[in-house]
């Protein structure tokens, strides 16, 4: 699995005082890059709030670790979604915007999500050092 992102561009904002709503809907926008085997589930739309994406993916991976069933990530600005359905140690991934489905094992999914969080946290704190003092940022990208 290749799970990554691309920030759209530099943004001017008061990063230290940005609200959770700002971080989940308005800031750190970009593209999702997601490839599993031969399936490309990338969403190169430019407007995806990446902090929200990383936090939501982490929440989903956490839920799937404790129970079977499915969890759905809904994009913030469209009805598009990504669904993760756990069966045993594997997770089937489907989306509303690309045909097909792909399999990944849960530990790998969890590890990839954690890497995504770490990379995003590092990039954003490097570009915008004042975001380090934002409590919402710390909580949303808490890596545990």
């Amino acid at each position, binding site marked *: 699995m290749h799970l990554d992102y691309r920030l759209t561009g530099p943004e001017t904002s008061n990063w230290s005082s940005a609200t*959770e*709503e700002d971080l*989940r*809907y*308005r800031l750190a926008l970009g593209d999702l890059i997601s490839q599993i085997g031969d399936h490309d589930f990338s*969403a*190169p*739309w*430019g*407007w995806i709030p990446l902090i*929200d994406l990383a*936090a*939501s993916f982490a*929440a*989903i991976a956490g839920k799937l670790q404790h129970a079977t069933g499915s*969890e*759905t*990530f*809904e*994009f*913030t*600005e*469209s*009805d*598009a979604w990504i669904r993760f359905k756990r069966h045993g140690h594997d997770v089937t991934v489907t989306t509303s*915007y690309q045909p097909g489905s792909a399999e990944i094992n849960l530990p790998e999914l969890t590890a990839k999500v954690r890497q995504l969080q770490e990379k995003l946290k590092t990039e954003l704190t490097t570009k915008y050092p004042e975001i380090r003092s934002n409590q919402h940022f710390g909580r949303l990208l808490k890596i545990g």
Partner: protein
Amino acid sequence: MRRSFLGVLSLFLLLMGGLAVFQPAAKADPAQSEQMQVTLTSRALRHIMERHWPDSPASGAGKFQAGITPNILRDLINESVRDGRARPNTHGRPGTIYEYDFQRPIGTTIDGGPASRLRVVVNNRNEVITAFPF
């Protein structure tokens, strides 16, 4: 051109006071309806226009049909919150999602097909965060 239009519109909204407040009646609980108040701020309107206005270049996002105006948008949001289905926002996102099917085209889906439904995301202070056709 588009940015200039948005700039003029934003200025207009700020001059108008910045906030547009309406009071939809809650469908399920008349007791709540009098307290229900949803606000469309100029910031939220800008957010919606940048992503979902007919001339927005944003891909992968539903678009309102040509002819949409801030007042029409407010009416659509009002009706959706009043008559639509409500559910909690997902995976820790704050607020509530309202969805309503107008049974007529109000825009286009991300694939460019006709969209008759509106999704409105409202925060815990009853302010609109975003709204888009799907």
